[in-house]
């Protein structure tokens, strides 16, 4: 067992040259251990309220899927609630919800996450139930058939009735014609229809293993007791080899890719994606900072120019989607009725070209750093928020403290670094554009 104590890190205030923001560290005790079967456990103690949050992250998501089997990661997430012989489906929920627990899960491209938030006195029950379903999940054809309908319904609601989601799906497909990031996490209807019980059983065996998971317990618990319970319930699970994921980055022909889709909407909308490297790149944080500085603040140039001065858009936003594999720097614009996407696109490119020519002002960058500081402290109001960062660090870097190093990198960033990444990545030959235009029968 490896136990690391982050220790009591109080708010440290440093006043560097031209930098007046404080560096904040949350004040929680953190322990990490690895069980012999490979399960990683993070313990985040916080005795403010008699509540614990319990999350299980599995290193599997839609990126692990194959063409023709899209949606299995997400469909399987639903199947994980179908129960075991000790806790059949309805009993699983009743046992937790009768104690007031919040129970849910979500699937992403790189991960699948299950969580419970519950009164602290029931922690052992949660550990028992979670370890039980990891070992003894019952998968039946009847459950698969009914859950398939629920997931198809979810897709109809989230994608087929949501034109913005359809635009995003078109962009990802255009950007990643072969890589799994090109298909939606929820999958395609025709693939969902095809998924078999055997595929679900294989998926469970291949990826739902202790060595492929991180459990994080945050809140009001006694560390030694929690360790005993984790060993008692999870220690008996055998570890099986996990199927490794080896993907190649998407290689597309250089040059801008464009698509126009028509939907029965009232206003045009614009979605631009620039290829960017994975989260492991040195440039990852710089791109994230650039997105925030140019598009994310009330005082950002995009808001001043496109929303307030020229009044072309109701809103403009951007995000560097930092993931395990190279992804996209996304810029989206919600247009005012009657405005043309082409005009907004031109203005966005002007802003980007300006950012390449001349570094952002120190004041602009300082605002982003202040915003980051506020968000960091705001998230630390609860140990569950802090636990999320720590788990993310453990998940992607095998180092739960990595997140704090990354925060330090953000605070130390200089305007010239942002200019360099803008020049390197935000170029015409490196981008994908999808415009959605009104068409068809109007209501």
């Amino acid at each position, binding site marked *: 067992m490896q136990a690391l104590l982050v220790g009591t890190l109080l*708010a440290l205030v440093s006043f560097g040259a031209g930098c007046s923001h*404080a560096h904040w560290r949350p004040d929680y005790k953190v322990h990490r251990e690895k069980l012999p079967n490979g399960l990683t456990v993070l313990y985040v103690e916080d005795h*403010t*309220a*008699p*509540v614990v949050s319990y999350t299980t992250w599995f290193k599997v998501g839609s990126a692990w899927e194959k063409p023709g089997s899209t949606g299995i990661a997400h469909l399987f997430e639903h199947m994980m*609630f179908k129960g075991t012989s000790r806790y059949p489906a*309805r009993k699983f*929920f*009743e046992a937790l*919800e*009768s*104690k*007031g*627990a*919040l*129970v849910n899960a979500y699937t992403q491209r790189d991960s699948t996450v299950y969580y419970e*938030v*519950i*009164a602290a006195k029931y922690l052992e029950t949660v550990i028992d139930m979670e370890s039980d379903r990891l070992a003894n999940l019952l998968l039946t054809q009847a459950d698969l058939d*009914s859950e398939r*309908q*629920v*997931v198809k*319904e*979810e897709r*109809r*609601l989230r994608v*087929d*009735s949501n*034109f913005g989601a359809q635009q995003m799906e078109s962009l990802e497909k255009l950007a990643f014609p072969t890589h799994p990031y090109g298909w939606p996490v929820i999958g395609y209807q025709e693939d969902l229809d095809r998924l078999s019980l055997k595929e679900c059983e294989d998926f469970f065996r291949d990826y739902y293993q202790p060595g492929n998971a991180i459990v994080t317990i945050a809140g009001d618990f006694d560390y030694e007791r929690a360790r005993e319970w984790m060993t008692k319930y999870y220690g008996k699970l055998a570890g099986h080899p996990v199927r490794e994921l080896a993907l190649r980055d998407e290689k597309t022909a250089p040059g801008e890719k464009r698509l126009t889709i028509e939907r*029965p*909407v*009232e*206003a045009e909308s614009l979605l631009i994606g620039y290829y960017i490297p994975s989260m492991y790149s040195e440039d990852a944080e710089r791109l994230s900072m650039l997105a925030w500085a140019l598009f994310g*603040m*009330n*005082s950002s140039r995009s*808001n*001043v120019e496109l929303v*307030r001065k020229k*009044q072309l858009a*109701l809103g403009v936003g951007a995000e560097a989607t930092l993931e395990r594999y190279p992804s996209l720097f996304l810029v989206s614009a919600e247009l*005012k*009725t009657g405005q043309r996407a082409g005009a907004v696109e031109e203005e966005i490119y002007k802003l980007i070209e300006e950012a390449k020519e001349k570094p952002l002002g120190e*004041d602009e960058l*300082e*605002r982003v750093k*202040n*915003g980051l*500081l*506020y968000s960091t*402290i*705001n998230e*630390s*109001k*609860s140990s569950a928020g802090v636990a999320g960062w720590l788990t993310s660090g453990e998940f992607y870097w095998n180092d739960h403290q990595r997140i704090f190093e990354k925060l330090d990198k953000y605070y130390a960033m200089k305007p010239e670094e942002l200019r360099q990444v803008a020049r390197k990545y935000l170029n015409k030959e490196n981008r994908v554009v999808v415009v959605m235009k009104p068409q*068809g*029968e109007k*209501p």
Partner: protein
Amino acid sequence: MKRVVATAGAAALLLLATGAAGKKSIVPRYETLLLKNGAKVYWFPSPNIPLFEVHLNFRGGSDLDPPGRSGIAAFAAGMIRRGVPGLDENAISSKLDDTAGGVEASVGEEDTTVSSYGLNEHAPEILDLMFEELAHPTFPEEPFKRLRTNHLDSIVQLPDSPGALATHVLDSVMFNGTTKARPSTGYKRDLVRVKLDAVRDYYPTLVRTDKLAALVIGGKERREILDRVARGLEALPCPACGKTIPEPGPVDLPPARLGKGTVLLVSRPGISEAHVRMGFVGPRRKVAEFYDLRVAETILSGHFASRLNLVIREKLGLTYGINAGFNFGTTVGSFVLSTSTRNDKVGELITQVNKLLAAFVRGEIGEDDLRIAKDYLTGSFPLGLQNVYAIAGSVFGGVLNGLEPAFLDDFQDRVNGVTLESLRAAVRKHVTLDQLKTVVVGDVKALSPRLAKHGLRYVVRKPGEFL
């Protein structure tokens, strides 16, 4: 709560009470202050987290918009962030972003809220700016024009979000005859007519310290955040203080009148999912049967083992999600059920939901239902109260609804006090299915035969009739 009356450090303040009470109280230490101008302030210190929040709640919102001028309160609140002497809106944005702070204004049906937040170390600049914005807004012309087109766009583009459109249409038919039937941002026909002068003239009606309750969270000592808020509030001009605001007359929407049991089908072509909303006007927060109704809605919805989820989603596979519950307003509330289904199942879904609700009202509720719902409500109670910010927000919400701050301490006992008899009686009294309105937004061509097949009468309307 111990009630103490004493003069406070700042001359302008009257310390009404200190709370929290004894060891057993969930509510942490707080103070209640009454300012000379009538404003009441609740202060919750937050010694360990260096963030502050201030929420100014002015009684009066879009419900008070005069006939033919719907949306004027939303405009008045929207102009708060647009300029003060010496600073235009871009300068205000920069100043706030410099400090990672925020000032926001929003209008609800019954109240208007102006909030600010940020790091304690920047509280002086952020709070001073908020009070300057409240006291001396400059009402510049250009931002006003932009705000108007933005509000118009939000209405025109509402059909692009079928779920949001369905919710709005249900409000329209459910509250038809009252001001609550209107969208808070106003009707399109009113928005195109509104003038800046009218908004400027209306503004004092909204920002009234004699109708103000404030929540302040943050700081260890009063001088850090609280005293500055108190000074700012006392300096706020209030030309409308003491004046009576005329209640606007009833609002009638001819297209929204619905016969009993008739489904209102709103056209939104091109989608494969029908968005369903069902509801009726319900009780306010201070209703005597509040805890019975919380248990009732928990039996119906809100968790996996609830009846709607188990029957409509799990057993019948008709939907991905279904939620229902009471919205307990200050003066009046509602019961709203939200769900969606594929087009070919819309008739079946509505029929099944009606059947389930009817059985519920008939009293088909067992001891097991009661026990599970009570356990869920009492067990989940602490989850929403994990820090002083969350607790203070709950306390303040209760106070605005006329409750004593210590109401949280009684919550679990009151829930546990609900019996099968009291529950059934409350459901019979307040789940008024004869008043139930049903709205479906979706593709009329695909949906109408499915409704007819299940014997459901319907009328078809276009979204524009409700905007």
